[in-house]
């Protein structure tokens, strides 16, 4: 494994029966982001350096910055939780790569945790594992999957 792979927390490639242009809007249009993220509100400024807020149920706010915005191919944004020591804003990164596939899209979705420098300073294995779990803690606490039990009303 190289250094980049070692910091990957979550990686999936899925096929979506919708064009990259359609899928792209679900990352940058607030009303569409809300439809899949299971949240009560969203504000996004989808340009490099632009900030986004996602108001997750129970008053938790995911806060981050768009790093790369290459419509409709590639989107990179930082991920973290406002006021959460476990996973503060800027402490992890999400990458979405959209590739045309027939009439649809192949979406590669990667969530990485700490920067390689930070990861190196950690002890091997277990400490790194714990750092990865912080994302679960921040993302799932206390809402678990609000989409499932409490779909957004908007």
């Amino acid at each position, binding site marked *: 494994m190289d250094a980049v792979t070692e910091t990957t927390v979550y990686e999936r490639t899925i096929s979506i029966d*919708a064009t990259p242009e359609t899928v792209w809007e679900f990352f940058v249009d607030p009303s569409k982001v809300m439809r899949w993220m299971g949240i009560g509100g969203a504000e996004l400024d989808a340009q490099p350096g632009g900030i986004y807020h996602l108001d997750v149920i129970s008053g938790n706010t995911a806060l981050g910055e768009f790093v790369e915005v290459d419509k409709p191919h590639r989107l990179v944004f930082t991920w973290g939780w406002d006021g959460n020591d476990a996973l503060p804003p800027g402490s992890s990164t999400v990458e979405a790569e959209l590739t045309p596939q027939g009439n649809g899209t192949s979406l590669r979705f990667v969530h990485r945790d700490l920067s390689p420098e930070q990861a190196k300073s950690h002890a091997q294995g277990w400490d790194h594992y714990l750092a990865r779990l912080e*994302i679960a803690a921040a993302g799932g606490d206390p809402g678990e999957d609000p989409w499932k039990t409490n779909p957004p009303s908007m």
Partner: protein
Amino acid sequence: MEAALKAIAEPRRRAILSLVRDGELSAGEIASHFEVTRPAVSQHLNVLKEAGLVSERRNGTRRLYRARPEGLIELRDFLEGFWDARLEALKREAEKEERKQHGRSH
């Protein structure tokens, strides 16, 4: 699961988990690593224990604590489930939108 997530959301408890990952330690030994009171450490240990992240063993008058790897594996599975559920919803919603825009029905 929620208890485990709450347990590791606290930085001190993650530090305690790291300390007891390779071997058993008593509450006193754990407390000596931190500038917090012994009762505070005991409270953190209780939270970790109830969340299934550490196990406790009595040895004479001492109680020894050690991390439970199984608890962490459950958390890892939860993390995967967190994004899996969202990506499933993304796929569903994007496909719905596509059908709407192009008047197709599947």
